[in-house]
């Protein structure tokens, strides 16, 4: 386990060095991502400027919810890109090489493509959070909850990416359907969940528990709900989801018949 972690750190270190070689291109891409995600928030801001409030939520509150969801997603977007590219590896028969190595396949995939440039998204999400946090009464407990929420949301999105990769064992070609759950899930969780219809909330609570990993803790941080055991433990649905995905991944690997030559 410690060995695996060290290996993963090495993967990331190598990828980081490689990406920093083209410095100007890297800076431009980070700025590009910063703008790409910044304009999403611009839309949110414009709607509040016009309508004043959203179902009782004010802009700073919505911004905090947005920031919590976006930082969690940004983390997973940087860490989990290798999973995104899995169908390509599978088609080329390269996955077989990974199977030969005496290390976890998921770990190798995570290390396969680490994108430093999602720092652009993280910077943007953090900036929104910092702005929104001036309106929040912080306590050590709520800061801990915030960190927990980041980690758990990231776990959940990596779990979705694992499921997406697993589906490629059956379909070979990775389908765009999954981006409804990754990017679509991120988009939906940037807004307070209680504005959605009941079935929609049920989906994001029971099946894809984004409401539990980012919205529920955000409510407690905002003081809209008590910071009790339920609000503190709800985000753990994220790691649970990841564990379940990894279990399904193993089923997929067992079923794997190589396509390469």
């Amino acid at each position, binding site marked *: 386990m410690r060995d695996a972690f060290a290996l993963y750190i090495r993967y990331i270190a190598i990828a980081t060095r490689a990406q920093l070689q*083209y410095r*100007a*291109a*890297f*800076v*431009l*891409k980070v*700025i*590009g*991502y910063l*703008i*790409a995600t910044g*304009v*999403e928030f*611009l*839309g949110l801001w*414009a*709607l509040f*400027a*016009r*309508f*004043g*409030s*959203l*179902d*009782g939520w004010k802009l700073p509150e919505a911004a905090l919810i947005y920031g919590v969801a976006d930082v969690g997603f940004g983390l997973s977007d940087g860490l989990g890109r290798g999973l995104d590219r899995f169908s390509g590896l599978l088609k080329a028969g390269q996955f077989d090489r990974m199977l030969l190595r005496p290390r976890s396949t998921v770990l190798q995939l995570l290390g396969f493509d680490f994108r430093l440039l999602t720092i652009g998204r993280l910077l943007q999400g953090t900036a929104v959070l910092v702005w929104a946090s001036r309106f929040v009464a912080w306590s050590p407990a709520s800061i801990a909850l915030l960190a927990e929420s980041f980690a758990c949301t990231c776990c959940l999105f990596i779990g979705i990416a694992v499921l997406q990769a697993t589906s490629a064992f059956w379909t070979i*070609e990775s*389908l*765009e*359907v999954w*981006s*409804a759950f990754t990017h*679509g899930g991120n*988009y*939906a969780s940037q*807004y307070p969940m209680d*504005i*959605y*219809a009941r079935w*929609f909330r049920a989906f994001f609570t029971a099946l894809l528990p984004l409401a539990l990993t980012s919205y529920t803790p955000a409510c407690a941080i905002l003081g809209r709900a008590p910071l009790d055991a339920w609000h503190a433990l709800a985000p753990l649905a994220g790691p649970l989801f990841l564990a379940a995905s990894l279990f399904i991944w193993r089923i997929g690997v067992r079923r794997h018949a190589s396509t390469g030559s």
Partner: protein
Amino acid sequence: MNGYLAIVAARFRTLLQYRTAALAGLFTQLFFGFVRIAIFSAFYAASPSSQPMSLPEVVSYIWLGQATLLLVPWRIDEDVLQQIGDGSVVYELARPLDLYTVWFARSIAWRTAPVMLRMLPMFVIAMFVLPHDWALMPPSAAAFAAWLPCFAGAVLVSAALSSLMNVTLMWTLAGQGVPIIIGSLATVFGGLTIPLALFPAWSQPVLYAMPFAGMLDLPSRIFTGNLPPHDALYVIAHQLVWTLVLVAFGRWLLARGVRRIVVQGG
């Protein structure tokens, strides 16, 4: 001229092959459409004061955006990226065709084939299957007739922007930074994030002066009846002027880029 038309036709046929991808994309775009409509419904429910667009107009606008999503150039043409990356773009220069026009022709195909594959099923679902509050309103005959040329104009603006994105690759070889920036500006100022009419009033003159408004926002407002059909003339003029400007700029930039190309032999 025939050469360029052949490129459009060949690319068009190739791109029409990706039908499974279109089907998968349809699901994703429906999902995004639902989330977006839920968000706008909640905003409108809390605000009784009148807005420049009614909620049914916004709902239709959202579906039009989801249906013609791929008209907005937020990704670079991978083939061109590779050609510039590995230097094989010089083969393109050796051909008796003008490189800019080749890229423009490729972009025309790229901005139409995938859009059409997704647009028709999306229209059917959004217009006839979804319940009334969530549905795309069928346009009046006049609005639809006025929308068609606006859609064609939107393809021209989009192709001109796509070609410009290709040209910028000659400077930022390893990166797609500039295309990402152009793409995200096109997303928000094209009206994909929220309808441009809902941005603050003071920003409207600027938003509607930009080329992005002609890709999605203006045609959609004609379709939904938010703008009267005879305003289509203004929309088409807006699109044509911007197409000319973007093409002229792209050509000038490409000429400069080609002058500094160094071919590494070996």
